[in-house]
């Protein structure tokens, strides 16, 4: 029905509404075109590459019809010894990175909401980690965490009683004693998570601060006069109004962190148990020169995200009858 109307609008530009529709189509067509060419077409090509065994040098001679189709790439990728470890790393990185950055963003927004001396300056400074280019940020962290000349290890050795420097970027697990029990801590993975939180909490901060400022003061004031303590005001007035933005942020951030290649690759190169799926796809593509494997793993990645998203959207649908 819609399509028919559309074709009619294109072929018979007589009426005012149709002329407008035609004009609008002309305006959006460059955008349509560039996204179709750079995103949609390549995606279908990934599908093709994933079910064939084509090497880069064979490509000029390959097409849809002379290719041999196989599910071998998926079998290879899924049965690889590193697959499940990278799934685990990806889930931990996504969950901790997302929740961490939103929690820090919320704490920052609450702390910088009311006026105090230096607020304007601090509000600008908070945006700095977000603004520093990721390459520069990664170099900075590598330097600060360096076992020989890094500031963090220097402080730890001097004042925190560390017996030896910690290899933040390459050590898989450490076993510090807590109350006499050795607790396994995934050092490199937590470092990558901390980097993610540090770099992106300002994003959550901006959204949450804007939302906090739009909450009417009247309601809060009335609750305070009625004797509500700050935690009660937060729990019953502020939090319900923030929840919409927070759940939006959870989804946006999770999508970004899940597919984040750059931050992890630059900081650790995938060492020490930080080889998330995005980094592994890159390894397949470059180090192993395996187009099919890279494509298959990439599709597994997309599918995983698709499932998580559908689950999220389904969960967050308001149930019938709960709300008027």
């Amino acid at each position, binding site marked *: 029905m819609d399509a028919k*109307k*559309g074709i009619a*609008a294109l072929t018979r530009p007589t009426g005012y509404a149709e002329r*407008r*529709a035609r*004009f609008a189509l002309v*305006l959006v067509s*460059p*955008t349509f075109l*560039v*996204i179709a060419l*750079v*995103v*949609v077409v*390549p*995606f279908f090509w*990934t599908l093709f*590459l994933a079910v064939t065994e084509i090497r880069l040098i064979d*490509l000029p001679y390959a097409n849809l019809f002379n290719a041999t189709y196989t599910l071998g790439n998926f079998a290879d990728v899924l049965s690889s010894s590193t697959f499940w470890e990278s799934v685990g790393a990806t889930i931990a990185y996504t969950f901790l990175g997302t929740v961490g950055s939103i929690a820090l963003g919320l704490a*920052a927004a609450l*702390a*910088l909401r009311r006026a105090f001396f*230096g607020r304007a300056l*601090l509000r*600008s*400074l908070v*945006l700095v*980690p977000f*603004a*520093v*280019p*990721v*390459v520069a940020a*990664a170099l*900075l962290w*590598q*330097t600060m965490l360096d076992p*020989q*000349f890094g500031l963090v*290890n220097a402080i730890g050795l*001097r004042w925190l009683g560390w017996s030896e420097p910690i290899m933040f970027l390459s050590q898989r697990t450490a076993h510090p004693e807590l109350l006499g029990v050795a607790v396994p801590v995934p050092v490199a993975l937590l470092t990558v998570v901390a980097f993610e939180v540090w770099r992106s909490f300002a994003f959550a901060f901006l*959204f949450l601060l*804007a939302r906090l400022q739009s909450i009417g003061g009247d309601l809060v004031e009335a609750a305070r006069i009625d004797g509500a*303590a700050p*935690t009660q005001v937060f729990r019953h007035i502020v939090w319900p109004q923030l929840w919409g933005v927070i759940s939006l942020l959870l989804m946006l951030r999770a999508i970004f962190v899940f*597919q984040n*290649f750059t931050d992890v690759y*630059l900081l650790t190169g995938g060492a020490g148990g930080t080889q998330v799926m*995005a980094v592994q*796809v890159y390894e397949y593509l470059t180090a192993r020169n395996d*187009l099919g494997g*890279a*494509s298959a793993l*990439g*599709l597994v*990645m*997309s599918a995983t*995200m*698709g499932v998580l*998203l559908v689950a999220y959207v389904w969960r967050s649908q308001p149930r019938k009858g709960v709300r008027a």
Partner: protein
Amino acid sequence: MSARQNPARRAWTRDRIETLVFGVLAWVMRLFLLVITVVPLVYMVALSMRPLESLLANPLRVFPTLGEITFASYQRALASMDTGGYDIGGFLLNSLYVAVGTIVLALLFSVLGGYAVSRFDFPGKRLLGMLFLSVYLFPAVVIAIPLFVIFTGMGLRGSLAALVVIYLAQTVPVALFMLRNFFENLPEGIEEAAALDGAGGLRTLWHIVLPLALPALAATGLFVFIVAWNEFLFALLFLLESRDSWTVSIGIALLDNQDVSPTVLLASSVIMTLPIVLVFLFAQRVFAEGLSAGATKE
């Protein structure tokens, strides 16, 4: 009544304790934020002005002594290859080309598209939304595989123009969304008046709408600039073999793999960061409003 007569007993209500505790916590948080934002920045700048030997000898002392402040690391980073430098300037120029090209095209596309979406009904409007979603749902590294293949086939590896096209596709959805939100809040009356006076669609857009949209264009352009300036994965995949085309992102990241002194790397980082931080701080108000506009609309 009795509480009012006895201030000492009134002092320890839940309300009073919480106000006190959160008052303290707020300052702890502010201090924490100050530390995690200022210390790394100061560290980066301070180390870039220290000789390497001094850093190795005393990693705990962040600041250089007055006598040892040196800009040798900056000179080394900026000097040309044949004088033993790393030619960061060339990388900066490449990044600038790519960023400016992307900004111009992304603004053009998103002004046209955002205006169309905010003002007109047309077939395929919903499809456009799905298409945008796809940009963010297909991981960049997945899209990169076939693009890598295509560019290799077409001999476009090493071409900055090809990179611009990719960055355009990566930024146009958000840019269009930002501008659409702005256009939707713009009263339509002025445009109708222009149309009645005989101005065509494009003339109305150019002469009436765009001048009003300058702040939104600035915010959108800033967003595009930051993405293009920072992007790493596509640049790495497509430019690796052609050093002359390296953008500053991969240029500095690849220096890290060679045995380059950390002070030179930090000096390069400062050089790469300075323009963006300055622009960011200068325009942060515009940017913050542009970014979160629509997010909080009730």
